[in-house]
C-alpha cells in the first residue's frame, strides 16, 4: 500500500479479492454510504429530541434562540459550504492526477474546518461565561422560562456532536495530506479522498439543518 513504486499500471492498492480497481472503488464507496446511513440515524435521534421538545415548548425556542448570534451561524454555514467546495475540488484534482492541487485543496479545507471550530469556540465560551451550560449546570437568568436549560442542552448536544465530527474530519484530512505527500493517490486510486469527501459533505448537510433550526427561529 505505502509502496511508492512508479510502475506503469499502479495497482499497488488493488486487493486480491477484487476483480479490478473499479470494483474495489465501488465497494468502498458503498460501504461509506452504509456508514453515512448510520450517521443520519445517529443525528436523527437528536433531531427527534429537538422536534419533541419544540412541540412541547414552542415559546421557549423563540426566547432561547435570541441568545444565538445569527451572524456567526451564517458565517459558519458559509465556511462549511466553502469547505465542501474545496473537498470537491480536492477530489477533482486527484481524479486529474494533480497531486499538488489535491494537497492545496486539502489544506484549505483543513483551514476552513479550523475556522469553523474557532468561531464555535468563541460562541461556546461567550455562553459559558454567562452561565449558559447544559443540563443542571445551567445558571443564566436572562431567559424568562423555567425550562431554558432544555433548549441549551439540545443545542450543546447537537452542535457538540457535529463539532466532534468536524474534528474527526480535520484528522482525516491531515491523514489524506500525509498520504498524498507519500504519492499514494493518483487518478487510478483516490478512494480515501472520495469517501472522506462523502463524510465531509454529510457533516455539511447536518449543519445546513442545524443552522436554521437553532439560529433562525424568530
Amino acid at each position: 500500500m505505502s509502496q511508492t513504486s512508479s510502475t506503469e499500471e499502479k495497482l499497488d492498492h488493488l486487493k486480491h479479492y477484487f476483480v479490478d480497481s473499479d470494483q474495489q472503488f465501488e465497494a468502498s464507496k458503498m460501504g461509506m454510504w452504509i456508514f453515512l446511513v448510520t450517521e443520519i440515524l445517529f443525528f436523527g435521534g437528536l433531531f427527534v429530541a429537538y422536534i419533541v421538545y419544540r412541540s412541547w415548548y414552542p415559546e421557549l425556542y423563540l426566547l432561547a434562540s435570541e441568545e444565538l448570534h445569527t451572524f456567526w451561524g451564517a458565517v459558519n454555514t458559509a465556511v462549511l459550504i466553502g469547505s465542501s467546495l474545496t473537498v470537491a475540488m480536492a477530489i477533482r484534482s486527484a481524479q486529474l492526477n494533480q497531486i499538488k492541487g489535491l494537497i492545496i485543496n486539502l489544506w484549505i479545507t483543513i483551514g476552513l474546518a479550523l475556522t469553523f471550530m474557532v468561531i464555535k469556540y468563541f460562541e461556546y465560551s461567550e455562553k459559558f461565561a454567562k452561565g449558559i451550560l447544559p443540563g443542571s449546570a445551567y445558571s443564566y437568568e436572562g431567559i424568562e422560562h423555567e425550562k431554558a436549560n432544555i433548549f441549551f442542552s439540545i443545542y450543546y448536544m447537537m452542535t457538540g456532536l457535529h463539532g466532534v465530527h468536524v474534528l474527526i474530519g480535520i484528522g482525516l484530512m491531515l491523514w489524506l495530506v500525509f498520504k498524498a505527500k507519500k504519492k499514494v493517490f493518483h487518478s487510478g486510486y483516490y478512494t480515501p479522498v472520495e469517501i472522506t469527501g462523502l463524510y465531509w459533505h454529510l457533516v455539511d448537510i447536518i449543519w445546513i439543518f442545524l443552522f436554521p433550526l437553532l439560529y433562525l427561529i424568530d
Partner: protein
Amino acid sequence: MSGHHISSAKFLWGIALALFMLTFLTVAVTWIHIPSPWNVVVAIAIAVVKALIVAAFFMNLYWDSKFNVILFVMSIAFFLLMIGITLLDTLYRTDPIPSF
C-alpha cells in the same frame, strides 16, 4: 452508473454559489417575519433544497450507482418514521409533560 464522474471546476463553483445564495435567502426570509408555522416550513424547505444539492452534485449521487441513492433515500425514510412514531406518542399524551 459511473463511479468516476469528474465535475468541471466551473460547475463545482456554480454549486457552491447556489448554496451561498440559498444561505443568504434563508437568513433574509427571517427579516420579513413570515407568520408561524410557515416560517419553519420555509426554513426547512430551503434546508432540504440545499441538502439535496449537496447530495446530488457534491456527493455525486446524481451520477452514482442507484443502490447508493436507495441507501440515502431509505435512511431519510426511516428517519421520518422515527419522527412520526415518536410524535404519535409525545403529541397525544394526556399526562402533563415530564419534568425533564
